[in-house]
C-alpha cells in the first residue's frame, strides 16, 4: 500500500513537473528546435529567401559543395571568413577571459573600497547596446581619434596615426615585413593555394581593422565574464583559504593552487561562452566595416547574412549557418575533452 502511495505521489509530481516546464519547452520547441530543423532542411535547397519556402527545390549537397570545394568566390569568401573568425576567437577569448578573471579577483578583495562602483563600472559595457558602442568606437578609431591621440602621447609623438578601421594589413604580415619576408620575397610555398586562399593569406593574422574590433569586443564582454567569475569566487568557502594561509601559502600560491583549480568548471563555461560568442560575431561588423577593408573583417555570421539577404541565396546562407554550427559544436567538444583530460 505504502509503496503504491509513494509511487502515485511520484507520478503526480512528475506530471506537475512536466506541466510546469511545458510552456518553456513549447517556446523552445517553436522558436529554437523548429527553426534549426527548418534551417537544416533548407540548406539543401536553392531557396532564394524571397518567394515562399514551399517553392524551393532540393539541390542535394550543392550549397555545401559551393562553400567547401567549388574553388570559386563562395569558397574563397567562406574560408576567408573562417580564417578571420578564427583569428578573432583566438585573440578575444584569451584576452577577455584573462582580463575578466583578473578583474573578478580584484573586485572580490575584501578590503577594496568603492567595490560596488568598480563592479558596476566593469559591467557597464556589457549591458550597453553593442550598436551604440560600435558607433562610438567608430569615432575613437578615426585617424585623429582618441586612440591615436593617446598612442601619440604615450610614445612621445613617435606613433604615426592610422585609420584603424580602413587598414587591411595583417598583424603577422606587419611583423614579418621587418624580417624581409613579404609575398614577393618570401619562400615559394607561401604562394601555394590551400582551400582557395594562398598560404600567405592564411598566415596574415587579423588585420589592423579586425584587431581594433577584437579589442572593442573584448572590452564589452569582459564585464559579463567577470560577473560569472565573481559569482564562482564567492562560492569558494573561506575555510579553504584559511587552511591554506595556516599552511603558510602566499597569495600567489593561493591563486594558482586554490582559486584557479576551484574555478575550473567556471573557466570551462566562460571559455565556451566566449568561443560561441566570438564565432558568431556580427553586429560590430555590420555597423562598423561591413566586412571591409579588403574583406579582412568578413566573418562567418556576416556571410550568412550576406548570402541570405544581400545575394538572395538563403539556401546557401543556411548552409553556411549549419557549417558554423558544426564548427562551434566541434570546438566546444574539443575544448571539453581538453579540460576533462586535465582534470583526470
Amino acid at each position: 500500500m505504502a509503496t503504491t502511495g509513494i509511487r502515485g505521489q511520484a507520478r503526480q509530481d512528475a506530471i506537475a513537473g512536466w506541466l510546469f516546464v511545458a510552456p518553456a519547452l513549447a517556446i523552445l520547441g517553436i522558436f529554437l528546435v523548429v527553426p534549426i530543423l527548418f534551417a537544416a532542411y533548407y540548406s539543401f535547397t536553392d531557396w532564394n529567401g524571397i518567394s515562399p519556402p514551399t517553392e524551393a527545390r532540393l539541390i542535394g549537397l550543392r550549397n555545401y559543395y559551393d562553400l567547401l570545394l567549388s574553388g570559386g568566390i563562395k569558397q574563397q569568401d567562406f574560408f576567408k571568413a573562417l580564417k578571420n573568425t578564427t583569428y578573432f576567437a583566438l585573440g578575444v577569448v584569451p584576452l577577455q577571459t584573462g582580463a575578466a578573471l583578473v578583474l573578478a579577483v580584484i573586485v572580490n578583495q575584501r578590503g577594496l573600497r568603492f567595490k560596488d562602483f568598480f563592479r558596476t563600472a566593469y559591467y557597464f559595457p556589457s549591458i550597453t547596446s553593442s550598436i551604440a558602442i560600435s558607433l562610438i568606437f567608430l569615432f575613437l578609431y578615426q585617424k585623429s581619434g582618441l586612440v591615436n591621440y593617446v598612442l601619440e602621447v604615450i610614445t612621445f609623438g613617435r606613433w604615426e596615426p592610422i585609420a584603424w578601421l580602413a587598414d587591411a594589413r595583417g598583424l603577422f604580415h606587419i611583423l614579418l615585413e621587418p624580417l624581409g619576408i613579404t609575398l614577393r620575397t618570401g619562400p615559394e610555398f607561401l604562394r601555394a593555394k590551400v582551400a582557395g586562399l594562398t598560404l600567405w593569406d592564411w598566415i596574415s593574422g587579423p588585420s589592423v581593422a579586425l584587431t581594433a574590433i577584437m579589442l572593442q569586443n573584448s572590452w564589452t564582454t569582459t564585464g559579463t565574464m567577470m560577473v560569472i567569475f565573481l559569482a564562482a569566487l564567492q562560492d569558494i568557502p573561506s575555510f579553504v583559504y584559511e587552511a591554506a594561509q595556516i599552511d603558510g601559502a602566499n597569495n600567489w600560491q593561493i591563486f594558482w593552487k586554490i582559486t584557479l583549480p576551484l574555478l575550473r568548471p567556471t573557466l570551462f563555461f566562460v571559455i565556451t561562452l566566449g568561443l560561441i560568442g566570438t564565432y558568431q560575431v556580427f553586429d560590430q561588423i555590420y555597423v562598423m566595416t561591413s566586412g571591409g577593408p579588403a574583406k579582412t573583417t568578413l566573418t562567418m555570421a556576416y556571410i550568412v547574412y550576406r548570402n541570405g539577404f544581400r545575394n538572395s541565396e538563403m539556401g546557401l546562407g543556411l548552409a553556411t549557418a549549419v557549417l558554423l554550427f558544426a564548427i562551434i559544436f566541434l570546438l566546444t567538444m574539443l575544448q571539453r575533452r581538453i579540460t576533462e583530460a586535465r582534470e583526470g
Partner: protein
Amino acid sequence: MRHRTLWTLLAALTVLAMVLAACAVPAAPQAPAEEAAPAQEAAPAEEMAPEEEAQVVELTLMGWASSEAENTRLQQVVDVFNEQNPDIQVTLNLVPSYDEKLQASLAGGSPPDVFYIDSFRLPDLVEAGALEPYEPQALDPDDFYPSLRNAFTWDGTFWCPPKDFSTLALEYNKDLFDAAGLDYPTPDWTWDDLRAAAEALTDPDNGVYGIVLSADFARWIAFLYQAGGSVTDEGYTQMTINSPEALEAMEFYVGLVLDGYAAQPSDLDSGWNGEAFGKGRAAMAIEGNWINPYLQDQFPDLNWGVTELPSGPGGQATMAFTVCYGVPAAGMYKEESFRLVNFLTGPEGMQMWTDLGLAMPTRRSLREGWLEKFPALEPFLNGAEYAHKWQFVPGFSDVMDTINSGLQEAMAGTKLPEDVLAEAEAVGNEILARWRERKGQ
C-alpha cells in the same frame, strides 16, 4: 527512462510545431490575389452592408525611415490620398532593417500592399516572382525619364514607377577655389581639368586634398562609363570590365590618390565623402543630391557649389540611384494598390513629394516647375538625361565586394589596377554563370 520521456516529449512538440508551421505557411500563398481579390470585391454589397466601414480597403505602404522632414512629408501626401479616396485607407509604415523585413514578409506570403524597391534590388524580386507588373496600370509612363524607366525594367517589363531619384555630381568648395585662384568647375570639364584642379587645390600642410574619393564601386563606376567602358554586356552574359577603357578609368581614379591629390574619407577623419567635404578637408567631392540637406544641416556655413561630373574619353556619364513603389504579386488589393502608386507617382502626388527639395521628380513634365524652386540643384537633375542605372543581376554583391576590396588595395598601392580588373572579371563571370544556372531551372 527519464531521458526517454524527455525525448518523446520533445519529439511530440517538434511534430506539433511543424504541423502548425506547415498549416500556416501554405495558407497564405494559396490564397493569392487571383482568387482572393475578386472574392473580396464580390462579397461586400449585401453581406457587409450593415457595417459602413466594411467597404474601406486598408492598405499598408512600407518603406524605410528617412529624415524627419521626408517622413512627415510622405505622411502628408498619404493623408491627401486618403482624403480623396474615401474607399481606401492607407497606413504608412516606415521601418528599420527594411530589406530583411520586406524579404520575410514576402516569403511569409503576407507582404505590404505597396513598398519601396531600390533599383539594385529589383532583379532579385522580379526573379523570385514577387512583383505584379506596373506596365498594364501605368499612368503616362513616357513622361518618366527613360534612364529611370530603364532602371525598373527587367526582362522587358516595366515593373514599378520611380518615386524619385538621385544622381552623382561634382560638389566644390567655393572658398578653397577662390583661395587657390581657380575658376569654378563647369559641366564641360574633362578629366584633365579635374586632375589639374585637384593638384592645384591640394595643400598637404593644412591637410587639405583636391578631392575626396572612396574605394567604392558605386563612385568609380561613373568614371568607368565616362571612359567608355562597361561592367557587363547587354544581356549579362559576360563581364566586360577587364577592358582598356576600364583600366584607364581605374588608373585615373586610383592615380589621383597615389599621386597625393585625392584622399579617402577615412584618411580625412570622415565616415564618407560628404563629411570630408563638409569639414573642408577636400575641395571637391562626388556625391548625390542627398549631400544637400546633409551639408545644410551639419555645415550650414560651408560655401559650396555643384556642377555636373566631368567628361572622360568616352564622354559624359553619371549614375542614377532610384527607388520605386512596387506592388506584390501576392497582394490582396492590387487594383487599389496601383491607384495609390499612380497617385504617389502621378503629377499631383509627385509634385507634393518633391516640393520639399530633397528628392527630385522623375517626370519630365515636372522638371521646369521644380527647377524654379530649386535652381541650384539643376546639375543633379540634368544627370537624368545621361545617367546609367545602378543595377546588375541577383547575387552581384559579391562582385561589388571584390571591386571595392580591389580598389582599397589599389589605393593602398598593394595591388595593380589590372589585377583588380582581372579578378573582378573572373569573379563576375562566375557570378553571372551562377545566376544563369539558378534562373534557368
